[in-house]
């Protein structure tokens, strides 16, 4: 059973279970759409966590990358009639190139200044979406089709779920491998002490670019998957609100944690919808927003290291209590 300790294998098992559940138990279609969305947000959150959690670089403009991925992929599939898989890859690569630009900005800026510069970047890109009609169809919005891979059409929400989980799984394993080796150490070192990192031979230039490029890549992939699930997009979606939501996902899920990114994304996608379903709350206006806000705050107060580390945190406090008792 030793191989079960291998993280990628654990991921694989979880992924397989998740794929099978909807096939066995028929879930409602809208629920499946929501779960698909949660998986897609997990992908962008994962990329964003590499940036924020590991590399310590903030961005408040990441929604723009997801939007870019969505538009690139819609154009490639619908206008250029490219195969979906190729489009998926390209819709990761294009934002990645733009991500490099943002990385350059990050070389000069820190902390809150970086936050605002990236926010400005996001707003500017969003504005480009609004004005560049030939690429985005402006406010009228862009439509897309369900993807076809090797002749199989992913119109059913269950099949689509298999597709999105597969992508999430692959990207999680990639992230895991990367973060446990040289790059991961370099990013963390850069986050904790730029001086120490530099002295150890870590090029801030290289690793800031790597972090921004990777996270933009993940965002673009998520955008493409979103586009072919919802089959419609328009510029207003890719604004600050989504970028801030993303930030919230990663923080409450757990910074610098792959599982945390996924937990956070699921939390912020599902919880507001579930709250709306609670019968006796339905008459209160804006319950969902109020309760989601409260939940966010409570999680940070009680589990400052995020949902992913709730277990460890509880274990530790129990342990310290026990040890103290033993000692006194």
């Amino acid at each position, binding site marked *: 059973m030793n191989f079960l300790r291998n993280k990628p294998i654990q991921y694989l098992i979880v992924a397989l279970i998740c794929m099978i559940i909807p096939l066995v138990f028929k879930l*409602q*279609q*809208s*629920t499946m*759409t*929501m779960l698909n*969305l949660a998986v897609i947000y997990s992908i962008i959150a994962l990329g964003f966590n590499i940036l924020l959690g590991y590399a310590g670089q903030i961005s408040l403009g990441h929604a723009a990358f997801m939007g870019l991925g969505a538009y690139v992929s819609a154009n490639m599939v*619908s206008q250029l009639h490219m195969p979906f898989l190729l489009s998926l890859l390209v819709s990761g690569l294009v934002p990645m190139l733009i991500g490099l630009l943002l990385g350059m900005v990050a070389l000069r800026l820190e902390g809150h200044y970086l936050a605002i510069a990236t926010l400005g970047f996001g707003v500017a890109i969003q504005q480009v979406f*609004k004005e560049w009609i030939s690429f985005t169809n*402006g*406010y*009228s*919005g862009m*439509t897309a*089709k*369900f993807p*076809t891979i090797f002749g199989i*059409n992913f*119109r059913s929400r269950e099949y689509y779920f298999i597709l999105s989980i597969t992508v999430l799984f692959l990207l999680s394993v990639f992230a895991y491998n990367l973060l446990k080796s040289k790059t991961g150490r370099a990013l963390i070192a850069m986050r904790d002490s730029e001086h120490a990192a530099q002295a150890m031979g870590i090029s801030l230039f290289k690793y800031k670019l790597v972090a921004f490029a990777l996270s933009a890549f993940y965002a673009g992939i998520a955008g493409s998957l*979103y586009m072919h699930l*919802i*089959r*419609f*997009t*328009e510029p*207003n*979606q890719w604004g600050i609100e989504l970028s801030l939501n993303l930030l919230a996902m990663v923080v409450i899920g757990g910074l610098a944690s792959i599982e945390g990114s996924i937990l956070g994304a699921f939390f912020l996608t599902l919880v507001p919808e579930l709250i*709306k379903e609670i019968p006796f709350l339905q008459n209160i*206006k*804006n319950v*969902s*927003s109020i309760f989601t806000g409260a939940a966010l705050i409570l999680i940070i107060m009680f589990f400052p290291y995020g949902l992913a580390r709730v277990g460890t945190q509880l274990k530790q406090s129990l342990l310290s209590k026990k040890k103290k008792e033993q000692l006194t």
Partner: protein
Amino acid sequence: TNQEGNTEVTDTANNEQEEAEENNIELAQGVKEDSIKIGTVGVQSGPLAFIGTPYFAGMEAYFNKVNDNGGVNGRKIELIKKDDEFNPAKSLQAVESLIYDEEVFAIVGHLGTPGVMAAVDTVKEAGIPSVYFGSGAVQLTQAGENFFPVQPNYVYEGKLMAKYAVEHFKANNLVVIYRNDDVGRDGLKGVEEGLKELGKSDILKSEGKLAYNSGDTDFTVQVQKAKSLNPDLIIIYGLSTGTAGVLKEIEKVGFDVPMLTTYSNADASFLAIAAPGAPNMIKNLHVMGWLDVTEESLKPLNEAMKKYFPDAPVNAYTMAGWVAAETFVAGLKEAGDNLSWEGYIEAMNHLNFTEGLAPEISYSPGVRQGVTKMAISKVAQDESGNFYFELVSEFNEFK
């Protein structure tokens, strides 16, 4: 665009048709002996809730009234409401939930262009009747036989504004200040098209097209530019806050010129925020209208609102919701007991509804224009200083 999708859909549609032929009293989903379940989707929370909330209230008020009077053919109408937060993905999710999980008979009054557009394919593939869209998107007139848009689309309204500009205002020099988004851009496009068809393209120069952004608070540039062009009419194609902001600036610099704005602003709540900031210049303002807003015809709405939602305001959005419900029920009455989807669509194809707030709503096979007649009203002031709209033209069509 969607090859595979389409064939499959026609397949299922065929199946249903066959079933219906075999068994004539087969009712569509959502229809029961004494009830009929329908759904609606719109924004109820977040920054745009000010649109969706009164809109839903208007709809509910009408359905409540119908139900209190015994329903339609003995069937009470059960309305399922979904909040999409103006997010297209959530809107799609809501529509899916209504069609496949709640299994409603029809979607009524789906609100918000992005959400409507995101769900177009799904609604089309399902074949479910969708009546009234809280959207001025022009694409809906071509979306399919099961789509029944009602409110004028922005492009059409723009065209009609051009016509009024030329015929009513005798304008020779026009300026358009528009909200730089789907609403304003479609409106501007309409004005341009209208002028072109009227052979008057020269009265709107490219310097005369002035955009503002939805969040703008400072309209100095737009008003200064407009002023320097010396126009004889300004069309303001924007929603309430922006339009009020423009008016305030116009008041500030004392710019005395006739103005025309969209039907979205044709209600008292707009006057309430715009008038105090521009007490003089607002009297130059004209609004388009597609509804008959005389006290007389508003009476049922006002009464129903007083009864069911005493605290809610009655504004353009309430009226829109009311019309959505009216239109759906009109179709329902027309269809009688033939409550399959085909039956309803068939009935709507012959609808000519004239008893409602809108002067006339009619469809025929292949024609999904919705409302085409609009009139203009001017802002006036009564003795006690209150502002109100005064109808100053007939209901006209473009052409």
